[in-house]
C-alpha cells in the first residue's frame, strides 16, 4: 500500500535543512561583550538557557557549561529564561561578567500559564487552571498524550477503557456529563480548536498541556466550553537556542495474567456438558431427540484421560508484542528567525495477533520577527497513522466482538488442525454457530488510515505601545479511510459459518475545518493599577464528506477489492457547521494583589434552531493574594496565600448539525418508508424527526472557589477548589409516547447538578543531594440528576443495565438482587417465584414485596460513579539517577461485568467459568449457592443483570515506573546529555474487580451506560528501555 505525505512535509524538511545550514555559518562578534554562567540552585550549569538583551531581539544561549557571551549596551538588562526555571532579569550596570542562579520553577507560582486566548501568570490567574509540562511526561511509553496524563490532573478522570491501539482514552473534567452531547473536552492546539481528540498527536511535539476547568477560564470558548478545555502548546524554539534532541524507546508488551477470564479447559468442559445432559430431560419431539442424541454421542466419545487442556482461545489470539518510538527534535533560534522541528515514528504491535499501530508525524513551528513590533509565525504539522486490526470489543452477538466471543468458545474445538489447516468453526453440538476465532483473528483484514494536517499562520503587530493586534488563519485537513474485509470464514456468534460470502466496508471520511481569529489586546499600567483588555471575533467552519460502501457477494475470499463484489450498498453523508463569535475580556488588578476579570463570548452557530441562533457566555472572577498584604509580611513560612472565586456560564454545542430540522426521509428509524404497488417499488417519504426551532446549546453555570497556598519558600504548595455547577437544557432525545408518531424528540430539557472538591499537593520532601518530590491530587466529584424528559421518565431501566433517574447519580447499575438458588423443595415453596422458577433455579429478591418475582423487581444494584479519584507521582533524584513512580486510582465505583451473561450462561451453548462446576445439581448436591441449575427453561432469569455481576471497581494502578541514568559526559562537545532509562507501564493493578481492566467502560463516552464490561482488548504491561540524547 502506498501513501502520499502531504506536499508541505517535504517543503518543511527542505526549509529546515536550509535554515540549519545558514545558522551554522553565523558567528557572533560584537564590540562590547558581557560573559557569564547560568547555574541552577545546586550549582549545576544550565544548558540551552535563552539569554536575551531586554528590549531588543538580540539573544544567545548558554553552552554545555552554562556559559554565555553577548553584546549588551552598558545600561541594558539581560533576561534569562529556560524551561523548568523561573525567568530572571538583571541590569548590566557596566559589568562585563554576570552569573545567574536560576530557581527551579516546578513549584513556582509566578511562571507563565496558558489561558484562553493568551497567557497569564500563575500568580494572577483567577480561574481553576492546571498545567503539565510535557517534559515530565517524556518517559511514559505510550502512543497518546492522554495516556501520559493519567494521574496527573486533579478533577480530571482519564481512563483507558480498552487497549485498542491508538484508541480508548476517555477524559472527563470535573465529572461533566451530558445525556447525548458527549463529555469530551474541547481540545485546542496552538489556539485552534481541533476536530476530535489528541490521539493522533505525537506527544513529543508538545511543550505544555493546560486544563481549564472552571467557567472563568473556559467561558471564552463559549458554546463549546462546558466539558472543560484542554490547551496544548507545541514546542517553539527560543531565541539563541540551538539544540538537537533524540528520544527513542523500545519495549515489550505482555498481557498480565490477572483478570484473564478463567474458563473451563477441555476436560472440565466435557464433564460439564455431560452433567448438563443428565440434568436435563430427554426431549420428546423427534427433532429434539436427534439433537440430544448428537450431543450425547459427541461428549461421551471424548476420552477424559487424554483430552487434556484443549484449546485456550485467549492464548491463541494473543501474544507478547514489541513497541517502539523514535523522535528527533531540532530547535534553532536567532534574533529574527526561529524554528523548531519534530519528527516522529511510533510503532506498536498489538498484543492481539494481527494488530498494529504505526504513526509518522512531523511538526515545523517557525517564527519570524520583522521588527520589535511585528511577528509572523507558521506551524505545519502533518501526521499519518495506520491501524491494523479488526473490531474486538463487546459481547458475542455483535460482529465486532472478538475477545468475549473467543473466550466462550468450546475448548474441545481445535484452532489449528493437525495438518496445519484452520478449521472454519469452533462449534460443538448444541452450541450456537461459531467461527474459529483464531482463524478470524489471523484472517482479519481491517485497516484504518488517518492523515491529518494541522496548520496555523499568525501575524502579530504592536500598533502602539501596549496594543497588540493579532490575526490568524488556521486550517485542519483530515482523512480517515477505513477498509474492512470480513472473510466468509469470519462471523459473529450465532451466525452460520462459513458465510455465503465475505463482505467489505470502505468508509472514507474527509474533513476540512478552518478558523480565522482576529484579536486586539491592550495592556496598560497606571500606578498600581494594571489593565488588560482583549477583544476579537472569530469565524470557524467545518465540513466533512463521508462515503461508505458496503459490498458483498464475493465469489471467493481471494480478491477483496470493491470490484470483485457483486452487491453494493452505498451511503454518503455530509456534515457542516459554522460558528461566528465575538469575544471580550477585561482584567484588572491592583498591585497584583486584588484581581478581577470579566469575560464574555457571543456565539452564533448553524446548529442552533432558527429562533435561537445566538448565545452569550459571560463569566466573572476575582482573586486576593493575602500573602502580599502587609499584615502577612511577618509570616515568613507562608510564601503564598491566595483566594479566588469565579462564576460563569458555558455551553455544549455537540447537539448534531441538523438536529433542529424536521427530517423528511425515505427511512424512519431503520425502516424503509418505501412500499410496493402493482409489484413495483413505490418511493415513500415522510417526516421522520420532529422539528425544534428553539433548539439550543446545553448551558452549564459553574461556581468555583479556590485557595492556593505556598509554604516554606514554596517547597510545599497546596491548592484546593470547590466547585458546583448545574447543566441545564440538556440536549435530550426526549422519549415521547409513540402515539405522537415519533419515539423521541430532540429538545433542551433536563438538568444535572455536579459538585466537588479538588486538592493538589506538591511537596519537595527532600532537596539536598537526594531529592524527592511528591505530587498528589485527589478529587471528589459528585453528581445528581435533577430533571429529565417527559414526566421525568427515567432513562434506561427495564431490560437495560443502567438507569438514570431523578434524585440519583447518573447511570446507576440496574438489575435483580440475587439471593441464591431455591436449594430444595421447601425453600422453593416458601419463597417468591419467577414465572419460570423451579427448584434449583435462581432466586431473586422480591424487591416490591408482592410475593412474586417479576421484571418490576429490578432495582439499583450499584453505582458506577467513584467517590473519589486520585493520582500520585513521586520522583527521586540522586546524583545521576532519577526514579519516578506514577499511580492513579479510583475509589468507590462499581463495575458490572456484563460478559458474565455469557461466561456464566447455563444453557450449555458457551464455555463458562470454572466455578460454574459448583452450581446446583440436585437437592443433595446444591453447590455453592452462586450458580443455579442448568434445567432448560429456568435459566433465563440468571442471564439478566443481577448482583452477581456487580463488584467494587475501586482500583490503584501503578501506571508507570521509570528509572533513569544520566551518563556523566566529560566532553560535551558532541553530546550535551545522554540519559538512559527503563520503564514499566501499567506496572501493577490493585483491584477487587475480577475482570482484566478496572478502567473498562463498554458504554464508552455515554454516561448513561457507565461501568459495564462486555469484554475489551486488554491493556498490556509494557517494559521499555529508552534513551534521550541532546546534541
Amino acid at each position, binding site marked *: 500500500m502506498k501513501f502520499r505525505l502531504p506536499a508541505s512535509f517535504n517543503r518543511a524538511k527542505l526549509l529546515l535543512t536550509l535554515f540549519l545550514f545558514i545558522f551554522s555559518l553565523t558567528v557572533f562578534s560584537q564590540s562590547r561583550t558581557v560573559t557569564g554562567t547560568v547555574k541552577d540552585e545546586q550549582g549545576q550549569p544550565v544548558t540551552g538557557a535563552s539569554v536575551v538583551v531586554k528590549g531588543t531581539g538580540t539573544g544567545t544561549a548558554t553552552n554545555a557549561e552554562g556559559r554565555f557571551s553577548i553584546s549588551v549596551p552598558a545600561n541594558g538588562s539581560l533576561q534569562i529564561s529556560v524551561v523548568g526555571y523561573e525567568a530572571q532579569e538583571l541590569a548590566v550596570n557596566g559589568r562585563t561578567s554576570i552569573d545567574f542562579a536560576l530557581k527551579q520553577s516546578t513549584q513556582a507560582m509566578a511562571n507563565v500559564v496558558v489561558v484562553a486566548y493568551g497567557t497569564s501568570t500563575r500568580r494572577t490567574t483567577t480561574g481553576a487552571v492546571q498545567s503539565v509540562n510535557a517534559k515530565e511526561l517524556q518517559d511514559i511509553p505510550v502512543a497518546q498524550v492522554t495516556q501520559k496524563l493519567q494521574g496527573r490532573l486533579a478533577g480530571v478522570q482519564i481512563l483507558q477503557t480498552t487497549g485498542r491501539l491508538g484508541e480508548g482514552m476517555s477524559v472527563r473534567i470535573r465529572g461533566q456529563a451530558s445525556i447525548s452531547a458527549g463529555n469530551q473536552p474541547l481540545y485546542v492546539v496552538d489556539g485552534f480548536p481541533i476536530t476530535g481528540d489528541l490521539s493522533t498527536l505525537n506527544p513529543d511535539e508538545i511543550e505544555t498541556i493546560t486544563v481549564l476547568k472552571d467557567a472563568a477560564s473556559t467561558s471564552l470558548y463559549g458554546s463549546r466550553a462546558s466539558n472543560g478545555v484542554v490547551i496544548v502548546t507545541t514546542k517553539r524554539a527560543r531565541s539563541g537556542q540551538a539544540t538537537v534532541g533524540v528520544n527513542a524507546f523500545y519495549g515489550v508488551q505482555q498481557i498480565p495474567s490477572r483478570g484473564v477470564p478463567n474458563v473451563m479447559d477441555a476436560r472440565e468442559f466435557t464433564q460439564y456438558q455431560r452433567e448438563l445432559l443428565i440434568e436435563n*430431560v430427554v426431549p*420428546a*419431539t*423427534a427433532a*429434539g431427540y436427534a439433537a440430544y442424541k448428537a450431543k450425547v454421542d459427541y461428549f461421551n466419545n471424548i476420552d477424559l484421560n487424554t483430552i487434556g487442556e484443549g484449546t485456550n482461545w485467549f492464548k491463541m489470539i494473543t501474544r507478547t508484542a514489541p513497541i517502539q518510538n523514535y523522535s528527533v527534535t531540532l530547535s534553532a533560534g536567532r534574533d529574527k528567525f526561529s524554528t523548531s522541528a519534530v519528527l516522529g515514528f511510533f510503532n506498536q504491535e498489538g498484543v492481539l495477533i494481527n494488530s498494529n499501530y504505526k504513526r509518522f508525524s512531523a511538526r515545523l513551528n517557525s517564527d519570524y520577527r520583522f521588527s520589535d513590533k*511585528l511577528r509572523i509565525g507558521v506551524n505545519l504539522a502533518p501526521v499519518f497513522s495506520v491501524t491494523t486490526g479488526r473490531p474486538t470489543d463487546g459481547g458475542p452477538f455483535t460482529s465486532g466482538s472478538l475477545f468475549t466471543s473467543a473466550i466462550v468458545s468450546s475448548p474441545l474445538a481445535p484452532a489449528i488442525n493437525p495438518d496445519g489447516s484452520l478449521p472454519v468453526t469452533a462449534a460443538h453440538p448444541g452450541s*450456537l*454457530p461459531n467461527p474459529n476465532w483464531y482463524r478470524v483473528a489471523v484472517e482479519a483484514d481491517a485497516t484504518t488510515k488517518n492523515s491529518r494536517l494541522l496548520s496555523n499562520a499568525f*501575524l502579530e*503587530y504592536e*500598533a502602539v505601545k501596549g496594543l497588540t493586534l493579532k*490575526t490568524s488563519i488556521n486550517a485542519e485537513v483530515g482523512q480517515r479511510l477505513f477498509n474492512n474485509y470480513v472473510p466468509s470464514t469470519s462471523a459473529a456468534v450465532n*451466525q452460520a459459518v462459513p458465510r455465503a460470502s465475505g463482505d467489505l466496508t470502505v468508509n472514507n471520511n474527509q474533513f476540512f475545518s478552518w478558523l*480565522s481569529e482576529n484579536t486586539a489586546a491592550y495592556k496598560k499600567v497606571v500606578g498600581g493599577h494594571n489593565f488588560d483588555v482583549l477583544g476579537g*471575533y472569530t*469565524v470557524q*467552519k467545518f465540513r466533512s464528506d463521508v462515503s461508505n460502501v458496503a459490498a458483498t457477494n464475493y465469489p471467493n475470499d481471494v480478491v477483496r477489492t470493491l470490484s470483485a463484489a457483486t*452487491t453494493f450498498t452505498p451511503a454518503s453523508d*455530509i456534515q*457542516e457547521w*459554522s460558528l*461566528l463569535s465575538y469575544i471580550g475580556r477585561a482584567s484588572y488588578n491592583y498591585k497584583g494583589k486584588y484581581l478581577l476579570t470579566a469575560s464574555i463570548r457571543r456565539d452564533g*452557530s*448553524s446548529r442552533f434552531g432558527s429562533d435561537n441562533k445566538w448565545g452569550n457566555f459571560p463569566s466573572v472572577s476575582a482573586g486576593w493574594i493575602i500573602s502580599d498584604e502587609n499584615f502577612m509580611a511577618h509570616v515568613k513560612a507562608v510564601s503564598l496565600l491566595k483566594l479566588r472565586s469565579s462564576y460563569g456560564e458555558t455551553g455544549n454545542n455537540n447537539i448534531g448539525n441538523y438536529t433542529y*430540522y424536521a*427530517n*423528511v426521509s425515505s427511512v424512519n428509524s431503520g*425502516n*424503509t418508508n418505501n*412500499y*410496493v*404497488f402493482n409489484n413495483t*417499488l413505490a*418511493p*415513500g*417519504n415522510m*417526516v421522520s424527526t*420532529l422539528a425544534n*426551532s428553539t433548539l439550543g446549546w446545553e448551558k452549564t453555570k459553574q461556581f468555583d472557589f479556590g485557595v492556593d497556598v505556598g509554604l516554606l519558600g514554596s517547597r510545599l504548595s497546596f491548592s484546593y477548589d470547590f466547585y458546583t455547577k448545574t447543566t441545564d437544557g440538556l440536549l435530550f432525545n426526549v422519549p*415521547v*409516547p*409513540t*402515539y*405522537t*408518531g*415519533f419515539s423521541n*424528540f430532540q*429538545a433542551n*430539557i433536563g438538568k444535572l447538578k455536579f459538585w466537588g472538591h479538588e486538592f493538589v499537593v506538591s511537596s519537595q520532601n527532600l532537596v539536598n543531594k537526594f531529592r524527592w518530590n511528591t505530587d498528589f491530587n485527589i478529587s471528589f466529584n459528585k453528581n445528581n440528576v435533577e430533571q429529565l*424528559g*417527559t*414526566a421525568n421518565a427515567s432513562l434506561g*431501566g427495564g*431490560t437495560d443495565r443502567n438507569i438514570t433517574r431523578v434524585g440519583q447519580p447518573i447511570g446507576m447499575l440496574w438489575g435483580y438482587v440475587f439471593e441464591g438458588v431455591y436449594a430444595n423443595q421447601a425453600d422453593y415453596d416458601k419463597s417468591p417465584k419467577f*414465572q419460570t422458577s*423451579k427448584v434449583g433455579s435462581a432466586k431473586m429478591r422480591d424487591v416490591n414485596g408482592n410475593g412474586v418475582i417479576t*421484571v418490576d423487581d429490578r432495582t439499583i444494584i450499584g453505582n458506577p460513579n467513584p467517590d473519589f479519584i486520585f493520582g500520585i507521582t513521586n520522583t527521586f533524584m540522586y546524583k545521576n539517577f532519577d526514579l519516578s513512580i506514577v499511580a492513579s486510582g479510583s475509589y468507590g465505583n462499581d463495575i458490572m461485568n456484563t460478559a458474565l451473561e455469557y461466561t456464566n450462561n447455563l444453557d450449555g*451453548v458457551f464455555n463458562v467459568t470454572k466455578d460454574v462446576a459448583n452450581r446446583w445439581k440436585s437437592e443433595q448436591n446444591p453447590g455453592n449457592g452462586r450458580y443455579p441449575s442448568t434445567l*432448560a*427453561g429456568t435459566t433465563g432469569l440468571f442471564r439478566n443483570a443481577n448482583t452477581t455481576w456487580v463488584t467494587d471497581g475501586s482500583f490503584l494502578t501503578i501506571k508507570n515506573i521509570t528509572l533513569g541514568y544520566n551518563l556523566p559526559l566529560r566532553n560535551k562537545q558532541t553530546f550535551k546529555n545522554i540519559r538512559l532509562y527503563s520503564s514499566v507501564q501499567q506496572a501493577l493493578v490493585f483491584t477487587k474487580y475480577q475482570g482484566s481492566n478496572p478502567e473498562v467502560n463498554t458504554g464508552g463516552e455515554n454516561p448513561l451506560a457507565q461501568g459495564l464490561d462486555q469484554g475489551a482488548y486488554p491493556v498490556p504491561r509494557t517494559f521499555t528501555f529508552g534513551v534521550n540524547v541532546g546534541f
Partner: protein
Amino acid sequence: MKIKILIAGLALTTFASCKKDFLDIAPETFISSNNFFKTQNDFTQAVNATYAPLRNVYNSAYIMGEMRSDNTHYIYNNTNRGNLVREEIADFIDNPTAEPVATKWTFNYRIIAYANEVLARIDAATFDENVKKNLKGQELFLRSLAYFDLVQYFGDVPLVLTPTAGSADEIIGVRSTLARTPKAEVYAQIIKDAKEAATLLPNKAAQEKGRATSGAAQTLLGNVYVVLKQWADAETALRAVVNSTQYSLLSDYAAFFVPSNKNNAESVFEVQYQQGNLGLQSSFAYVFMPNLTNLSPITGFTFNNQNTGGWNIPSENILAAYATGDKRKGASIADGYTVNSAFVAQPYVKKYLHLPLPAPNGSSPNTDENWPVYRYAEVLLFLAEALNEQGKSNQALPYLNLVRDRAFGAGAATITTTDQVQLRDIILNERRFELAFENKRWLDLVRTGKAVPVMSAYGAALKTSGKYPNLVSSTYNVTANRLLFPIPFNEILVDPKLIQNPGY
C-alpha cells in the same frame, strides 16, 4: 503602514465572509419538511410511506393473533432463548415489556401519525382534486385500520387525529401527556374514517393494485360493526362489497397465497411485499418453518433457521379439528419433512411457503409472499354471520356454503341448518379453518366471548399431554384481564397518564 493595510485587509476578508447566511446551513443529504408537502408527487410519496409500517405490524401480528390462540404454538428453542417473549405471549405469561406488543402499538401509531400529517396538509396544496380525494381516502382507510387493530388488542387508546408539532414545551407538555380515550369514541372515529374513505376511494378496478379501495373500506367497516355486534350496519357495509361485483372466490384455496397471484380477484386488501434486500421483503415462510440448523430438507438449500423459525406451529388441537375432506388443511399445513430418507413429523404452516424460495440475504430470510388482511372469503363469512345474528339464518347459508363448496368440493359439505345457535358455532368454526394462520382466531375468540373457556381448556390439555415440559404452572392462567394486552412498558414510562390494563 503596509502592515496596517495588510491587517485591515485580512480583517475585512474574514468579516466579509460573516454574512448573515453564514449561520444558515441547510442539510444536503436529506429533505426537510420546509420544502416538502408541496406537489402531488410529494403527497403521493407521503401516502406511500403510510403503507410502509403495515409491514412491521403484520410481520409480527401472528404472535398476538395466532400464537395466543388455540391455532398455533411454538417449538421450544433451547439454543436461542432470545425470543422468549413470544413464548410468554403464547402461554399467557407475558408482561408489558414484550417487544411484539410494543411493535403493534408503535407501528400502528406510526401509520396514524403519517396519515395525520398528510390529512392536515393536503387541503392546502393545489393539484388534481380526484387524485387528492383518492390520497385522502387511502389515509383515512389506513388510519381507521390502525385504530381498529389497536382498540381490539388494547381497549381504550389515545385518539390522536392531528400531527404532532409546535414548540418544545407544547410537544413535551401537551402532546405527550394524553390519556386513553374511551373505546366508544375511538370506534366512532374508526367508523367515521372508514365511511369517508369508502366514499372517497375508487373501486378495485379503478385503483392501482395494492392500494386501499372502496371495497376494502367497506370490508373494514363491516368488520368493525361485526365486532360491535351492530349486525344490520354490518350487513349494509358487507353487502356493498358483495354487490360491487369487484370480487369473487378463486376456485383453488391455495392459489390465493401464491406470490405470482398477488392482488387477485379474491383479494380485498393485502400487505404488499417484494423479495430483495431493500427492506420490502417478507419472511413468513422462514418464521413458520421449524428452527432447523439446516433447512435444506424443506427448502433445498442450506440455511440456518435456528434464530428465525419455529414459530406459529400448528397446534395438535387445530390439526385434530379439521374435518375430513377439508382441502384447506393440506393447503395450509405441512406434516413434516424428510431428513436422510427419515420422515420427521413436525407440522408447520406452509400457506406462505412457495418453493423455490428466492436466495436469502446472507443469514436473513427473503421471501416474496404478501400478507392477506381481508379476503373475499372473509367478507362472505362476515355477511353470513351478520345475517345469522339478525335471525336471517336462511339468508346466511348461501354465503357460508360458497366458502365450504370451495373447501370440500361443490355440495360435498353443504350446511343446511337454520338454527341460529348452531349456525353461529358453525360459522365461527368455518372462520377458524378458512382463515387459519391469518391472525383472525384470537380476536374471534375474544369477540365471541369464548377466549377464556377455550384457551383454559387448551392450556390444560397442553400441560397434561406431557409434551411441553417447559410449561410451568403459571402458564395458561387465562382470565378476563388477559383478553387485552398490556400497554407497552415504555409508553407508560413516558406518559404516566396512560393507565395500565388491569392484570399487568
